[in-house]
């Protein structure tokens, strides 16, 4: 068993006794077999000395118990690491950032306090899963839709606080962006509510997020400044209907015009999440053979246009859902087609049937894209499993790297090219290419994703770590970074956001030292180390 840093076994035993006194014997887990449950299944240090391992786990039932745990942790200088459901794999799962931390497992705090389908919000505790919230809404015939990540086994709170994302309208699929009001146990055990929730007796906590004065909500996402114990979630009123539509453009060089128009539609809140694809380049499961095209390095525009013509398929496509009353959906679709015809020669359109919402219970199992309609599911594991790329040398997991790029064709192509070169420089076949398409998890940025494999094999993990670090270095050279990452890479990823000699991180560390003087909450999370552990920075 790992021990908390600088703590003897007897001191730790004394702390565990106090934890048991606070939450009950049954909710403190300190045996090796129980602590093993909190290992990160996708750890890129699996089985190595550097693997992040908890020393114990504590599962409080309520806010008061969280406060007691924090006060005990302060007395013993024990680092604690709060998790909600702890299933955000590729970002650490249930394992702490610092070995020896005590995981605060908030699974028992799982009350859906309110779902309001007139003012369109929910108020939830950390242990509420997306499935719980979805089921509650359907059981109670509430007229709201949730936005879910994929896989959907996490919690709205945990996913939001990790800057998680979904698949519907822009304002809702940015999950932290759609939170409204937090309740926080500070590092010193004080209870805080943000926004209108700071007014005693306020009924507007989930209506007004600012309150008055500085808003501190952002400090509690991807951070270690406190433990969030309640969160409001903005919910989308259940649309009357949706229609899925696809637009294709014939030439490689049409990509920028396509993006410009989609940006207009997205930023006007006229369409759901755009899904870019390249019919000529092939999808994830059926990539077109590009060996000849790539044999002399990155191809020229003429070569790319010739390749597209040879494939006999459009260079690019974008699909999205249109949501709303039937009249609005049809009218929006008519307007969209007009706008594209005016701008891009050879543009073509496809549309599917209009479907009413909510989806009847009996139709849900057969739905192909449940997450697009706010239906949580675990099908992503089977989809990834079927990926032929994984059949050659199937990994045990993956460490995702999401390169944030400007919403332009050049931005997407640059990220894809830099990542491809980084892979080749490290001896790996490139995972991106000239036809790589951006993901629009965030409505105002592009994401170019690569999934770097993790293993139960130390030598392979060492190579993966080197690849991941090299990719981070290379994209930083062109002014790009990632928006979240596994604990193993958080220090490096944060180090790239180093404008003015790292003034942002310096500011965050000053805050950390002030509001968490003993440095007990999630030391090292996203590069923020307390003063007494700053030499741990990797």
């Amino acid at each position, binding site marked *: 068993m790992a021990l908390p840093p600088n703590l003897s076994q007897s001191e730790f035993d004394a702390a565990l006794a106090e934890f048991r006194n606070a939450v*009950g014997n*049954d*909710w403190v*887990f300190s045996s*090796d*077999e*129980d602590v*093993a*449950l*909190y*290992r990160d*299944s*996708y750890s890129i240090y699996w089985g190595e000395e550097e693997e992040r391992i908890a020393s114990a786990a504590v599962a409080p*039932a309520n806010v008061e118990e969280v406060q007691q745990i924090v006060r005990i942790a302060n007395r013993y200088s024990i680092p604690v690491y709060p998790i909600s*459901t*702890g*299933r955000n*794999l590729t970002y650490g799962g*249930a394992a702490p950032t610092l070995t020896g931390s005590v995981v605060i497992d908030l*699974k*028992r705090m*799982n*009350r*859906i306090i309110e779902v309001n389908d007139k003012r369109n919000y929910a108020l939830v505790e950390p242990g509420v*899963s997306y*499935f*719980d919230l979805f*089921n*509650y809404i*359907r*059981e109670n015939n509430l007229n709201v839709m949730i936005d879910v990540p994929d896989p*959907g*086994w996490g919690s709205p709170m945990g996913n939001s606080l990790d800057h998680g994302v979904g698949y519907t309208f822009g304002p809702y699929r940015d999950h932290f962006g759609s939170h409204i009001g937090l309740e926080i146990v500070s590092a010193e055990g004080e209870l805080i509510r943000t926004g209108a929730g700071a007014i005693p007796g306020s009924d507007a906590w989930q209506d007004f997020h600012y309150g008055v004065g500085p808003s501190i909500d952002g400090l509690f996402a991807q951070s270690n400044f406190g433990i969030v114990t309640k969160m409001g979630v903005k919910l989308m009123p259940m649309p009357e209907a949706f229609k899925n539509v696809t637009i294709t453009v014939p030439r490689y060089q049409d990509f920028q015009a396509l993006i410009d128009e989609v940006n207009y539609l997205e930023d006007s809140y006229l369409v759901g999440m755009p899904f870019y694809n390249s019919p000529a380049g092939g999808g994830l499961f059926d990539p077109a053979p590009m060996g000849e095209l790539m044999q002399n390095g990155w191809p020229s525009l003429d070569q790319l246009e010739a390749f597209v013509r040879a494939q006999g398929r459009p260079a690019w496509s974008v699909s999205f859902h249109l949501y709303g009353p039937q009249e609005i959906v049809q009218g929006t679709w008519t307007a969209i087609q007009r706008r594209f015809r005016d701008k891009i020669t050879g543009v073509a359109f496809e549309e599917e049937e209009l479907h009413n919402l909510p989806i009847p219970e009996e139709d849900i*199992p057969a739905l192909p894209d449940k997450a697009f309609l706010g239906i*949580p*599911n*675990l099908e992503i*594991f*089977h989809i*990834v*499993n079927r990926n032929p790329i*994984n*059949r*050659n*040398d*199937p*990994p*045990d*997991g993956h460490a995702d790297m999401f390169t944030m790029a400007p919403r332009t064709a050049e931005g997407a192509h640059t990220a894809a090219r830099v990542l491809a070169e980084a892979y080749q420089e490290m001896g790996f076949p490139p995972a991106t290419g000239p036809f790589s398409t951006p993901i629009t998890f965030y409505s105002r940025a592009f994401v170019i994703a690569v999934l770097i494999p*993790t293993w*139960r094999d130390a030598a392979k993990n060492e190579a993966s770590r080197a690849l991941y670090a090299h990719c981070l270095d290379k994209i930083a050279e062109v002014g790009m970074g990632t928006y979240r990452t596994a604990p193993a890479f958080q220090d490096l990823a944060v180090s790239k956001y180093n404008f003015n000699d790292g003034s942002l991180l310096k500011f965050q560390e000053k805050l950390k030292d002030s509001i968490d003087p003993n440095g007990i909450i999630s030391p090292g999370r996203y590069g923020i180390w307390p003063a007494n552990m700053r030499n741990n920075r990797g």
Partner: protein
Amino acid sequence: MICCILIKKRHAGDKGVMIKRRTTLKIGLSGALASAFPLQSFAASKQAAARTDLTDLKVLYNSNYAESRNLAASMHQQQIQLEDMAEDLAALWYGKLKPELAQRPGILFGLGDRVDLFCIEELARDFGMKTVFRLEHLFNADGSVIHLNIKGQTDKDVDRLLTTVPGFGYHLTELVPLALQNSQQSIDAHKRTGPFPMQGKSSLVSWMIS
């Protein structure tokens, strides 16, 4: 309805669910299975008590796979809960297994692909449950089957019980006593792999989570 039960339980508090779960299950299951499975091959079975309550065991199969369907077929006459993982694993867990396990501790015994195991393994942490037994079943091109334990080795007891030809699913529940024995030994079976399939092999995995 299930959701309502969950909500009520939340308000009522759920202390006590974890109390001595493993001890209770080890005693209960070894006895419970005595009435349902041929236990004569294993020493552990000889210690089986007279208890015949089978409600602690839930057998999970995946109807996408022939051997898993064989497992289900073999359970047809047993008074043991049988669940299909093929349609919607999430609905199965959140809609059925999780509320049931919150009410009463149980043991999960399954045969499916690695995704099935991986997901259930992660979800079961909510109840402090871990994978205590795991056996990979590899299908060779010649039709034979190899059963590999967590050390990547064959086991003569297992081969004798299951045979190395198709149809082993019919006999799989005979492994339950062996799995129960292993549950008292180590955590080596837990999180052995990720969700991805074995390289170049058609394979399934059987497991016990308790």
